[in-house]
C-alpha cells in the first residue's frame, strides 16, 4: 500500500464525511481556530508594527521579540499551559498567538520602513496629517509586504493548529493524533493531506487578497 492508496481510501470512506468526527466538522473547527488566532495576533501586532514602522523607532526591540518568540517551542508551550491551566481554548490560543505575532510584527515594521520616503514627504508637504500619511500613503505602499507577513503567520497557524488535538480539542489534528494511537495509518495520512490542502488554500486566499487589495501601481514594482 502506498501513500496514494491511503489517501483515496480515506476520502472514499463515506463514514469520514459525516458526524462529529466528519471531515466538514473538523475542517470547520480548524478554520475557526486559525481565524481566531490570526485575528488576535493581528490585533496585537499590526498596530504596534504600523506605529513603530511609521516613526522608525524600536527596530532592535522588535528584532529581539522576534527571536524570543521564535525560540519558544509551540508544542512545549501548549503542554505546559495545559498542565498549569487545564484544558480549554486559552491554552491553545496562547501558543498560536505567540507563534503568529513575530512574523506579522517584523514584516509590518520592515514594510513600513521600506516605503519610498519621497511620496511620504510630498504628502506631508501638501498638508496631510500624520494619520492621513499613515493610512493613505504608507499603508497602501507597504501592503504587499504586510500581506506577506500575515500570510506566513496564517500558514504557520494552519500547520500548528494540528497540535490542538494533542490536548483533546478538535480540528484536523484529531485525525493525525487519533490515527497514530489507533495505528490507523489511513486516517493519519488523510488528516495530513487535509492540513496540507488547507495550507495551500490559505496561500491561494492571500494571493487573491493581494490581487484584490493592492493597488496596480504598487503591484508592478513589488
Amino acid at each position: 500500500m502506498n501513500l496514494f492508496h491511503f489517501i483515496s481510501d480515506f476520502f472514499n470512506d463515506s463514514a469520514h464525511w459525516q458526524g462529529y468526527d466528519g471531515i466538514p466538522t473538523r475542517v470547520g473547527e480548524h478554520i475557526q481556530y486559525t481565524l481566531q488566532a490570526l485575528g488576535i495576533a493581528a490585533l496585537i501586532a499590526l498596530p504596534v508594527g504600523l506605529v513603530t514602522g511609521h516613526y522608525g523607532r524600536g527596530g532592535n526591540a522588535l528584532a529581539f521579540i522576534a527571536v524570543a518568540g521564535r525560540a519558544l517551542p509551540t508544542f512545549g508551550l501548549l503542554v505546559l499551559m495545559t498542565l498549569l491551566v487545564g484544558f480549554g481554548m486559552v491554552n491553545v490560543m496562547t501558543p498560536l498567538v505567540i507563534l503568529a505575532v513575530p512574523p506579522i510584527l517584523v514584516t509590518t515594521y520592515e514594510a513600513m520602513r521600506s516605503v519610498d520616503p519621497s511620496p511620504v514627504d510630498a504628502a506631508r508637504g501638501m498638508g496631510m496629517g500624520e494619520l492621513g500619511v499613515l493610512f493613505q500613503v504608507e499603508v497602501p505602499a507597504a501592503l504587499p509586504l504586510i500581506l506577506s507577513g500575515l500570510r506566513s503567520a496564517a500558514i504557520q497557524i494552519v500547520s500548528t493548529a494540528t497540535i490542538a488535538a494533542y490536548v483533546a480539542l478538535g480540528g484536523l489534528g484529531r485525525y493525525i493524533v487519533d490515527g497514530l494511537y489507533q495505528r490507523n495509518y489511513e486516517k493519519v495520512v488523510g488528516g495530513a493531506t487535509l492540513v496540507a490542502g488547507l495550507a495551500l488554500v490559505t496561500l491561494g486566499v492571500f494571493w487573491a487578497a493581494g490581487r484584490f487589495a493592492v493597488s496596480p501601481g504598487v503591484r508592478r514594482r513589488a
Partner: protein
Amino acid sequence: MNWDRFFDIPSDLQHSWLGLVGLHLREALLPVLAGLLISLPLAQLCVRFRWLYPPVLWVTTVLYAIPSLAFFVLLIDYTGQTELTVMIPLTVYSLVVLVPAIVDGVRSVPQETLAAATAMGFGPVRRYVQVQLPIAVPAIVAGLRVATVSSISLVSVGALIGNQGALGNMINDANIYNRPELALNAVLSMAVLAILADALLVAVRVLLTPWMPRRSRPTTKADRPEPAAAALEDAAR
C-alpha cells in the same frame, strides 16, 4: 510544580538531560547543514539561470506550506519512526529560507566589484568563492539564523510520531506523568539552545566579515535586509 525533580528525567526517555540536549542539537543542526550544502549550488544555479528562480521559489513555498506534523507522518511510510523522518522535513524547510537568502545576497554584490575581480584575472569559480560568497555572508547568516532557530523548536514536534523529538519527548512525558516541571524544563532548554545558536551565528558573521561596522546597526537603505528576506522571517511551526 515540583522543582526538586526539574532534572529528574523519566527512564523511558533513555537519555540524561545532557544526552537529550545533544540529541536535540544533532536532530536540529544536521538538517540546517544539509540545507546549506544543497542550497549553495542550487542558489548559484538560480543566479546563473534567472528563469530557474521563480519555479524554485514556487516549489519551496508550496513544500513549506506542508505542516511539519503532516510531513513527518507522510514520511513514516518510507523512513519509519526514525530520526531521518524528522530530519528530512527540517532540511526542506531550511532550503525555503536559505535559497532566497543566498540568491539575494549573491545578487546584491555590486557590478563594479565583479568587474574588478574579472579584471584581476579571477575565473568564474574563484570569483564566486572569493568575492561573491564573502560579500553575501551577512545575508546567508541571516537566513541561517531563521532556519536554525525554527529547526531547534520544530524538532520537538517529532515527539508526536513516537519519541523522535529529543527534548520534545520530555514534553510528551510531562503530559503522560503529569509533571509540568518537565515541560518547563524542555521549553526553557530549547529556548536557551535557540538563543545560544542564534548568538553563535551572529559571532560567526562578525568573524567572517571584519570589514562591517561592529556596533551600530546598518542604517542605509542598501544595507538593510531585502524585503524578500524579511518576509521569510518565519517562526517555527
